[in-house]
């Protein structure tokens, strides 16, 4: 790990000032991603700004929904009664991720800003445009079984690894941030970005901005939801493909359907056309297959991850089926049925 200096502010104002006070300063919250990356020399901050003493730990009622402070841990959030009752999709997605110990340390703001698990990104000895812009992308044509099938560029094919964010994308949360330019709210779909020509940027958050909260709208689709995660082992592994599905039914007709995919793109992946296709259709397998078809038309496999196309297609169909029938997959229930 590189040598760095350490500051521990107690107000947001001091934290924002501190992040601007050194080139390459980083906020640290749970540390479960940043400390790991520092051990691999992928991150070499000159200064760490410990934000764990800032007053951002509450979950409060806000505009009919809930405002989740950036420092609320993944465990606290997943087991909060209001979240479990009103936004069970979010609870389930969080509990699908990492491990009990990691979720106890990991924070909401840190989860949003965690970096890709691309092997080359982690390996200092290999070229990687995300780690070192302009050096090349070793994953294209290399070992890319875990990489993206949507929204890739010739510069980067990495995925965003979060489970929580896939649920937040489907729920259409907003991310409230502040910095020298003042406070703003970013719609969740615009928080993470596609790699394009600048894969070094994962998000639209500016380097001197801090996440204050994630704001959930009032509609939580509590009756019809599921988070389905498919991976190489049954727990404590990142998603190869995941799907967060939400459905509102009028009788057996779909009033509204939303679904976001994880593990397949540089951001949680939604497809407006496929969701619109479902509106007014009967909640049947045929409808879900039609929606999956629309999404998968855009998929572009790499040399080793073609299997994700069929896996994602089936995950969409199963996810929508579970959501529509009100039978969400429990994260302790490993049966495939």
């Amino acid at each position: 790990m590189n040598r760095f200096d350490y500051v521990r502010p107690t107000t947001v104002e001091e934290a924002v000032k501190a992040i601007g006070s050194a080139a390459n300063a980083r906020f640290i919250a749970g540390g479960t991603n940043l400390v790991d990356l520092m051990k691999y020399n992928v991150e070499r901050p000159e200064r760490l700004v410990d934000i764990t003493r800032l007053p951002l730990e509450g979950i409060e009622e806000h505009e009919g929904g809930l405002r989740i402070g950036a420092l609320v841990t993944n465990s606290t959030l997943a087991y909060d009664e209001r979240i479990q009752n009103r936004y069970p999709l979010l609870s389930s997605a969080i509990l699908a991720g990492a491990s009990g110990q990691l979720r106890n340390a990991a924070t909401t703001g840190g989860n949003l800003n965690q970096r890709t698990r691309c092997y080359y990104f982690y390996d200092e000895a290999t070229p990687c445009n995300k780690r070192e812009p302009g050096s090349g992308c070793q994953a294209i044509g290399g070992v890319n079984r875990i990489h993206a099938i949507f929204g890739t560029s010739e510069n980067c094919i990495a995925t965003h690894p979060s489970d929580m964010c896939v649920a937040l994308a489907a729920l259409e949360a907003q991310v409230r941030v502040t910095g020298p330019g003042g406070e703003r709210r970013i719609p969740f779909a615009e928080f993470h970005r596609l790699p394009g020509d600048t894969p070094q940027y994962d998000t639209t958050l500016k380097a001197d901005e801090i996440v204050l909260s994630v704001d959930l709208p009032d509609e939580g689709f509590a009756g019809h939801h599921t988070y389905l995660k498919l991976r190489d082992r049954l727990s404590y592994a990142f998603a190869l493909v995941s799907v967060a599905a939400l459905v509102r039914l009028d009788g057996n007709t779909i009033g509204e359907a939303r679904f976001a995919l994880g593990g397949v793109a540089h951001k949680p992946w939604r497809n407006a056309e496929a969701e619109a296709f479902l509106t007014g259709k009967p909640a049947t397998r045929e409808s879900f297959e039609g929606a999956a078809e629309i999404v998968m038309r855009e998929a572009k496999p790499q040399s080793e991850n073609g299997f994700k196309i069929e896996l994602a297609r089936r995950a969409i169909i199963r996810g929508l089926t579970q959501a529509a029938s009100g039978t969400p997959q429990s994260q302790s229930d490993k049966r495939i049925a």
Partner: protein
Amino acid sequence: MLIDSGSPGAPATIGISLTINGEVRELQVAPWTTLLDLLREDLDLTGTKKGCDHGQCGACTVLVNGTRINSCLALAVMKDGAEIVTVEGLAKHAGQDGAMHPLQAAFVERDAFQCGYCTPGQLCSAAGMIAEGHATSREEIREAMSGNICRCGAYTNIVDAIEDVMHAGAAR
């Protein structure tokens, strides 16, 4: 600002206070020292193990303010003021001075280890998990304990031991 270690390039050690296994310790730490390295290298509390050093195995699990975390990914300086319990203090923490913690006794009874390398982490993790109170069924225990890898594959017996303690209602 509560703490400022100085200008960039001139890092200093920082004074912190930790209660470790019931004992208050005033310590000087470099900001890049992990809690795991502090425990093992500086305080000679080598019960807590380093398996992967990257959050991937759970061998380094300790309780911080009663909550289980991976000490390899925690910077010691950030835990200033916290109460730390390691495997060395688990029994004492549960008011079992002199005797084993119920989980330790159950692990022996159920033969819940082979080489024992993962065991301190398993014990602290299980104590934390029981205190969390979310897992009851065997499936839920398995899921909640998935952050602890056992290379010897003692999983079945580990879950048996934890179930024994949970059903006896004796763990803390």
